[in-house]
C-alpha cells in the first residue's frame, strides 16, 4: 500500500512539474506575424521582411510578413490594434504616413500614434533634394533663392502628408519660398517628372539615390542636401542641410508597433532582440545594400520622435 502511495505521489509530482513547466514556457512558442499595411515588394514591405528575416532566428520561431492593404493603410493598422496582447501579431508602420492618416479629419480615423505600443523605430531614411546633373542649381541655397522669386514645382513621392511633401511645405513656411509640391503618386512618378524635366527638383530620400548620386551614367543625379542631423553613411560626401545653413530635418521612418495591451515581458524580449540585431554587421550590410539606413529608437525616444513629427505636421495646417 505504501509503495503504491509513494508511486502515486511521485507520478503526481512529476505531472505537476510538467504542467507548471508548460505554463511557464517562454514566449514565443509559435510563429509570429508582422502585419505590413503596404504592398509586397515596396520599400515598407522590404524593410519589414528584412527585420523578420533577422528576428526569426533570434527568437527561434518563424516570423512572417502579412501584407494587409486597404483603407489608406488603416485596415492593416486596425488589425494590429485589435490583436491580442500576447505578442504573436505585430505591426510595421511608417512616419509621417501614419500621422498624416489620422490628422486628416476626413479620414475618420479614431486613433493616434498613442493608440499603439510603439516598439521601435528601425529604418531611418533621411529626406534629400535631388536635381539633374545639368541643373543650374549647384547648392541648396541656389534652389531656395530661386524659390523665393517664383513658383517652382518640386516632385514628391506622395501627395499631401507624405514626408517629401511635408519637407517642401516646411521649407516654404520657414524660408518664404513658393515651391509647389508635385503631388506625384509615388517615387517612380516623381523620378519620371524629374528626368522628363517638367519639375526643377525631386524631394525624396537617401534610399532613392544612394547609388546614383556620385555616378556619371544617364541616370545620375546631383543631391543638393541631406535633411538630417548628421551626414548619411550612404552618402557621406553630401552635406546636410544644417551644414548649409538650412535648419530643417525630414525623414521617412519605418518602425515596429503593436497593440496597446502588449505584454510588457514580451515587449522587453522584442526590444532586446532588436538591439542585438542593430549590432549585427550582416543586418546593417544587407540593409545598406538596399539603401536603408538603420537608426533604432526605442520606447520613449521613439514616441518623442513621433510627437515631433506630429507637431511639425500640425504646424503646417494641412487640414
Amino acid at each position, binding site marked *: 500500500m505504501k509503495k503504491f502511495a509513494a508511486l502515486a505521489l511521485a507520478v503526481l509530482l512529476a505531472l505537476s512539474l510538467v504542467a507548471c513547466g508548460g505554463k511557464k514556457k517562454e514566449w514565443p512558442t509559435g510563429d509570429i506575424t508582422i502585419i505590413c499595411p503596404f*504592398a509586397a515588394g515596396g520599400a515598407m514591405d522590404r524593410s519589414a521582411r528584412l527585420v523578420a528575416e533577422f528576428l526569426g532566428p533570434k527568437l527561434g520561431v518563424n516570423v512572417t510578413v502579412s501584407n*494587409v492593404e486597404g*483603407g489608406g493603410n488603416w485596415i492593416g493598422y486596425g488589425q494590429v490594434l485589435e490583436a491580442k496582447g500576447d505578442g504573436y501579431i505585430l505591426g510595421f508602420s511608417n512616419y509621417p504616413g501614419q500621422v498624416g492618416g489620422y490628422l486628416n479629419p476626413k*479620414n*475618420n480615423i479614431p486613433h493616434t500614434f498613442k493608440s499603439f505600443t510603439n516598439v521601435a523605430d528601425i529604418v531611418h531614411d533621411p529626406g534629400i533634394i535631388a536635381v539633374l546633373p545639368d541643373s543650374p542649381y549647384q547648392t541648396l541655397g541656389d534652389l531656395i533663392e530661386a524659390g523665393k522669386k517664383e513658383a517652382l514645382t518640386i516632385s514628391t513621392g506622395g501627395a499631401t502628408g507624405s514626408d517629401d511633401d511635408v519637407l517642401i511645405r516646411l521649407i516654404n513656411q520657414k524660408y518664404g519660398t513658393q515651391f509647389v509640391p508635385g*503631388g506625384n*503618386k509615388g517615387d517612380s512618378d516623381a523620378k519620371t517628372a524629374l528626368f522628363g524635366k517638367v519639375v526643377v527638383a525631386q524631394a525624396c530620400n537617401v534610399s532613392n539615390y544612394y547609388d*546614383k548620386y556620385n555616378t556619371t551614367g544617364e541616370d545620375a543625379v546631383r543631391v543638393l542636401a541631406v535633411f538630417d542631423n548628421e551626414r548619411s553613411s550612404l552618402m557621406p560626401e553630401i552635406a546636410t542641410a544644417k551644414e548649409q545653413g538650412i535648419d530643417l530635418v525630414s525623414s521617412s521612418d519605418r518602425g515596429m508597433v503593436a497593440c496597446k495591451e502588449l505584454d510588457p515581458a514580451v515587449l522587453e524580449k522584442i526590444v532586446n532582440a532588436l538591439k542585438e540585431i542593430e549590432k549585427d554587421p550582416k543586418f546593417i550590410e544587407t540593409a545598406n*545594400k538596399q539603401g536603408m539606413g538603420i537608426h533604432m529608437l526605442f520606447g520613449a525616444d521613439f514616441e518623442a520622435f513621433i510627437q515631433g513629427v506630429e507637431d511639425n505636421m500640425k504646424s503646417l495646417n494641412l487640414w
Partner: protein
Amino acid sequence: MTIWEGISQAFAHLFTLQAALGLVIGVVGGMIIGALPGLSATMGIALLIPITYGMDQTAAILMMAAIYTSAVYGGSISAILIHTPGTPSSAATCLDGYPMTQKGEALHAIGLSTTASVIGGIISAIALLLIAPPLARLSLNFQAPEYFLIAFFGLTLIGSLASGNMLKGLLAGAIGLVVGLIGLSPEVYARFTFGNFKLNGGIDLIPAMIGLFSISQVMVLGEERGKHSSTVKEEAVIQGRFLPPAKEFVGLLPLILECSVVGVFIGILPGAGGDIASWVGLNLAKNQSKHKELFGTGIPEGVAAPEAANNAVTGGALIPLLTLGIPGSSTAAVMLGGLTIHGLNPGFELFSKFAGITYAVIIGFLVANILMGLVGWAAGRYLTKVSKVPIPILLPCIAMLSIIGAYATKQNMFTVYVCLIFGLLGFLMRKYGIPTAPVVLALILGPMADEQIYQGTMQAAGMGGITFFQYMMSRPICLVLLGLIVLGLFSPLISKLISKSYKKKYGEVGEAAEDI
C-alpha cells in the same frame, strides 16, 4: 559595352542549373498563378521574392521575369474557360474567349491565346534586347498631360467596345468612372466614403473585376439549377485543334504583330500596363475588322488581339525598369523591389557593370516565352476538360477560387464584401443589357486621368503659373494625341456620312434603273 559583348557574357550566367530551375518554376508557377482569379503577376512575384533569397542573381531575376510573362498568359486560360479573368490583363479576353468555349472551341481559343501571347512576348523580348535605351529615353517624353490624354483616349474606346447598345456601354463606363471616385482623391481628400475609413483606399480593381466577371458568372450559372448540362453547349466533342490552321494564322498574323508593337509601346510607358493594352488591342482588332458585329460571339481576333498586346507589355515594361529604374507597369514595380533586394540597382549600370547578368535575364526571358508556349501546348488538351465539368461541380469551385482570390489581394475581409457587391451589380447589369467590361476599363482609366490632371496642374503651377490646359497644348506629343482622339471619335461619323451620300447617289440610279 556593345550588345554582342553583353550577350556573349550572358551565356555563362544563363547555362546554370539554378537559372534553368528558375526558368521552369517561373513559367509553370506563373501560369498557375495567372490562371487563378485574384492572383495576378504582381502578387505572384511579390509573394515569391522570399523564395529567391537563396538563388543567384540571374536565376532570381529570370524567375521573376518568367513569372511575369507566364502569368499574363495564364490569366487567359481562366478567362476563356470560365469567364473569370485570371489577371486584369485578361478581362478583354473573356469577351470572345468564353463564347468560344461555349461553342465547344475551347482548345482552339487556348491555342490562339498561346500563339498570340508567345509572339507578343518574343517581340517585346527582342525590343528589350536590341533597342531598350532609345525606347526608354522616348518614354521620358510622356508626362502628366500625355498620360491624361492617353487615359482620355482609352475612355473613348468604351463607346466602340460596347457591341450592341452604345448608350448602355457608355453608362457602364460612367458607372466605372463614378466608382473610381470613391476614396482618397489625389489631393488626399476622402470622397464618397460616408464616414467609413475602410473605403479610403477606394475600390480596388481586382476584387471589383472578380465580382463583375466571376461572381456574376456564378450567379448566371445558377440558372442551370436542376439541369445536368455542362458549360459547353454541345456536350459531345471539343472541336478545333490547338494550333490554329495555317490559313487562319496567316490571316491573323498582321493583327498579332500590330498588337504586339502597340503592347511594347504601352509597356514602355510607366503609367500604363497590360490591363490597358489588352483593351487597346481589342479595339484595334475591331476597327480593322470587316465584321465588327461578330465580336463578342467568339471569334479568333477577339482572343488573339488582346493576348498579343498584353504579353508584349511584359518585355516593354522591363525596358524603363532596367534602364532607368522606372517601372513600366505595376508588376515591374514589384520587380524593382526584387532587383534591389538582390543588389542589382536598375539603371545604366545594369548594362555595363552587370551586363552579363542583365543580358542573361533578357535572353532567358525570351526563352521563357517559348517555354510558356510549349507548356500551354502540352497542357491545353487537359485544360479544356474543364469546360466539360458539370456545372454543379464547377460552380462551387469558381465561387471558392474567386472568394479566395479577392481575399488574397489585400488580405482582409472587407475586400471580399466589396467583391460580392460588385458580383450582384454585375449580375444585374448583365440581365438588363448593360455590359460589364466598360466598368473595368473606366475603373482603371478614371483614377489615372484624375491623378494626371492633378500632377499636371501642380507641374503647370511651377511653369510660370499656367493652367493645365496651356501646359498640355505646349507639348507636341499631346497635340498628336489630341489629333488621334479627334480622329478616333469622328471617323465612324465621317465614314457613315460618306456611305450615306454614296448610297444616295447610287440608290437613285438603282431606282431609275428599275423604272426602265
